[in-house]
């Protein structure tokens, strides 16, 4: 059974909670405001924008540590021909020491900033192609919300975000105009890779746009399927490493069928698709090559070893029949128990659930209360 209300409750349970969202909003707005106001840096900053699972609406709540994380891209005017990736990162050190001393760490491709209330991943890019500079400052790029906060997000010059809409009386006309404008495709950006000593391509805006289109073809269920399967992996196989994060999401995206009508159907058919599409790879001990949207020559799964993929394939193969049984079950209780086997206690199974308010409640087997006998 599809159990729509149970899945609705499950997804609100595993998604980012209000406190996570307000924390990460505070974190990234502060960081971006500081960057833009920094006298040394703002001369070389073109724009800042959000990427990552928060922006793509595929983020799940952090499990053990209670800190949410958010990814910030800062586009600079640094020339990749003359400035090395290491030097580019160095340029940000004074700023980081000033505002985030002792709380940041240089990683291979980004700077991790760890505060008490949020974790941020700061990615620096080199100078973009000249035709892209203006667009990178558009509200549709710099927006602070996930792409599905509105149902009309697109990379168009006239598009404005929620807070701007509230301020303008002509918001309706502006948005109508934005719908009619053609979408900007843009070029990949260059980000540093310290380990390789090079600048590497990436196209986060293309990934966000792809997610939007996929979600639309799936009647809004795609991002929910991603969250559900990420949660499955995280709770059932907490020690498994790769694939995780964006590669896992990308795998799901490639295998989730279009026009699904529920999360339950999406989860089941995605798992089954992975089993059938990659059986050859699993048997041969190979890892499939999945081209990145926007930078097709990149293989999203390049970090996976064949052992990683084989383990992952085995996990999916074990999960797919359980999902199928859960989906096909005709009894609500049986179905819920099976879904729970995949998703753990976050999936509501009300027979043993306890009310958080006062006492417990149990489905009524006999009248527990005599009503209609007291008068006044």
């Amino acid at each position: 059974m599809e159990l729509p209300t149970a899945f609705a409750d499950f997804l609100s349970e595993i998604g980012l909670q209000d406190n996570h969202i307000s924390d990460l909003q505070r974190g990234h707005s502060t960081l971006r405001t500081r960057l833009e106001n920094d006298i040394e840096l703002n001369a070389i900053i073109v724009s800042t924008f959000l990427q990552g699972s928060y922006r793509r609406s595929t983020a799940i709540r952090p499990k053990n540590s209670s800190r949410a994380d958010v990814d910030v891209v800062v586009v600079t005017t640094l020339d990749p021909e003359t400035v090395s990736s290491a030097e580019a990162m160095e340029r940000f050190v004074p700023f980081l020491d000033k505002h985030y001393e002792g709380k940041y760490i240089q990683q291979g491709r980004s700077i991790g900033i760890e505060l008490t209330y949020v974790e941020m991943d700061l990615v620096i890019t080199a100078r973009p192609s000249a035709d892209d500079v203006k667009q990178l400052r558009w509200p549709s790029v710099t927006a602070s919300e996930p792409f599905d906060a509105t149902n009309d997000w697109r990379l168009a010059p006239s598009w404005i975000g929620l807070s701007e809409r509230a301020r303008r009386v002509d918001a309706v006309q502006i948005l109508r105009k934005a719908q009619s404008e053609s979408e900007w495709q843009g070029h990949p950006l260059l980000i540093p890779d310290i380990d390789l000593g090079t600048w590497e391509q990436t196209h986060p805006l293309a990934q966000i746009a792809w997610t939007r289109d996929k979600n639309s073809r799936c009647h809004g269920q795609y991002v929910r399927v991603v969250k559900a399967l990420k949660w499955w992996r995280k709770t059932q196989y907490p020690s498994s490493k790769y694939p995780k994060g964006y590669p896992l999401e990308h795998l799901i995206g490639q295998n989730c069928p279009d026009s699904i009508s529920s999360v339950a159907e999406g989860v089941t058919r995605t798992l089954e698709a992975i089993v059938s599409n990659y059986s050859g790879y699993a048997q041969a001990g190979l890892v499939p090559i999945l081209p990145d949207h926007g930078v097709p020559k990149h293989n999203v799964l390049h970090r996976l070893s064949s052992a990683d993929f084989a383990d992952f394939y085995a996990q999916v193969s074990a999960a797919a029949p359980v999902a199928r049984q859960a989906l096909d079950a005709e009894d609500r209780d049986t179905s819920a128990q099976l879904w729970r086997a995949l998703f753990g206690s976050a999936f509501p199974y009300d027979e043993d659930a306890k009310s958080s308010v006062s006492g417990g409640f149990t489905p009524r087997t006999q009248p527990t209360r005599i009503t209609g006998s007291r008068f006044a």
Partner: protein
Amino acid sequence: MSGETLPITHELRYARRFFDGHQELKLIEDWTWYLDVKRWGLCFRASPAGIPPDSPLYNTIWYVTVEPLYPWGEISVWPSKIDGINMTYPHQNANGTGDEALPWRAGKLCLVSPLRVLGRGTPSGEPLGDSDRLQWHLERALVWLEAAYKGVLLAPGDPYEAPDLPVIAPEARIGFAETASSFGQWGQITTTRGTVELTQIGAGNLLLCKQFTQRRLGPVVVAPTWGSVTENQRSTTGIWVRLKRMPILPPWQLPISWGELRAVCTSNGDDLDAKLCEVAPRIRDGQPHILLLGCPIPEVIDGPLRRLTWLGIQLPILGRTTQTIAGFRPNARGNWLYDRRSSLTDTTPIRWIRTANWAPEYLESRGRLPDAITEQRIAIIGCGALGSALAELLARGGIRHMTLIDGQQLEPGNLIRHTLSVHDIGTNKAKALARRLMSVAPHLTVHPIADVFPPENPPERQTVQACDFILDCTADDSLLEQLAVFPWDGAKRFAILSLGYHAKRLWCYIAGGERFPHEDFDSRIAPWLEREQEEFPTMRFPREGIGCWHPVFPAQWSDILFLAAAVVKYLAGSALDMPSTPRLAVFSQQVLTEQLLQIATTDGTHGAA
């Protein structure tokens, strides 16, 4: 509209779980907080299995609202404005468009009814406080829909109820008194229209139907009997028209426009316009008037017609006969045509007003005393604490005739244990109490005598003689002698009622006959008074104000009411057989445990607790 959202409780989440996989109910919109009405609402589609898919009643959209305290509190099911039903059925409120700001219509379903038609396979009571209460309601809504489709929402034998009023004009509320016997009277009368005298009650908009006449100042056709509350009150005139049947549009709604009313009357064989045209001249005075439509109804569905009920309409001001209206002859017909085209057109909305049947069997149905006592003509001598308590208990219990006798005025110190209020201070107690009682019991006829017993003037003495049951609530020993020597004109029942110290006890002495047996009373009460002395050796009496030492006996209103209520049961029961020997009943409060207080009654001869 959703506004500030409260957090969704666990109970609300669980409540809608049954939608998952339900064959006949589909959740369309999950819980939304409607700030305007402070309710959580969800939208669902109902596709009952017992209704064929081509029926308009299949696949209808509904909203259900619950209070934040779910599973406690109110649950209501409403038709959606979009794709919901827009007609009114039985067991449904009038299904107008309702509040503009809300997505549902006003036609709330009545699902908690104990009627048979809704009892399909469900346990008897609504599971208040249980988590599947929402499911219970929505499954009953499915049953309701199937019954609506089959046309069996009104089953033969169910109590008859008129459709809900669509819109209620606030200008007036009408009370009438119609019973099976008045229906018989109406049956003898051929007139089908006339004028009605409406008596105003109180300062508000309440009107009672005093009498129905054929023409103003003509002979009375039917006049219900009312108590003293309708005497000396202002009246206005309305018009009445009798119809052959209730003007109900299918499935079960009252007309909302004059055009609909005309159409349904015509199809019932009533020519409404002709009758209105005839009576309209009586109310062409530039004032707004009321129209009453009399309709015969049964007590139960499909039962025989048993009584008349009146529907009320607030009419617009009709054109005056003295005005000449261009294009219309200055006669009754001309005037009526003018009204028909200006203020009573087919599209004019009808301004229904609330009416209710105030006949005693309906008005007092919640708690009337037995006929044996309500038929007694009761006199209460002494309108103090005990007297006022008894008088109100009896009046509200449906007594028809009461005489109140007291020579004193109400003082401020009386308020702590009396039914009267500050507005009555300085007024004679009997008069003030009579005024109060006639307003709490519209069918009570009450005579106040502002004098000590026995009254001086002959009409008042006559009134006293006409009483059957004399209650003495004075606790005055001299009064007993007055009762003994008064020349009663027949056998009477006497009850002497008095309270002991702190109202621990109430003594009720009952005697019957043409003479009140004063000596017998004294001998029976004496041992009890001795006991009071023993139990309360140093009775300390509170004082009331400065001045002459004026002791007042201590007792709380709650004690007095407690004992008065107990003795009312006795008076309405065994006190009514004419005893051959007088007897003394003693009611006393006894505290058995912390939580249990009882009144023990004793036959005074045994002198027990």
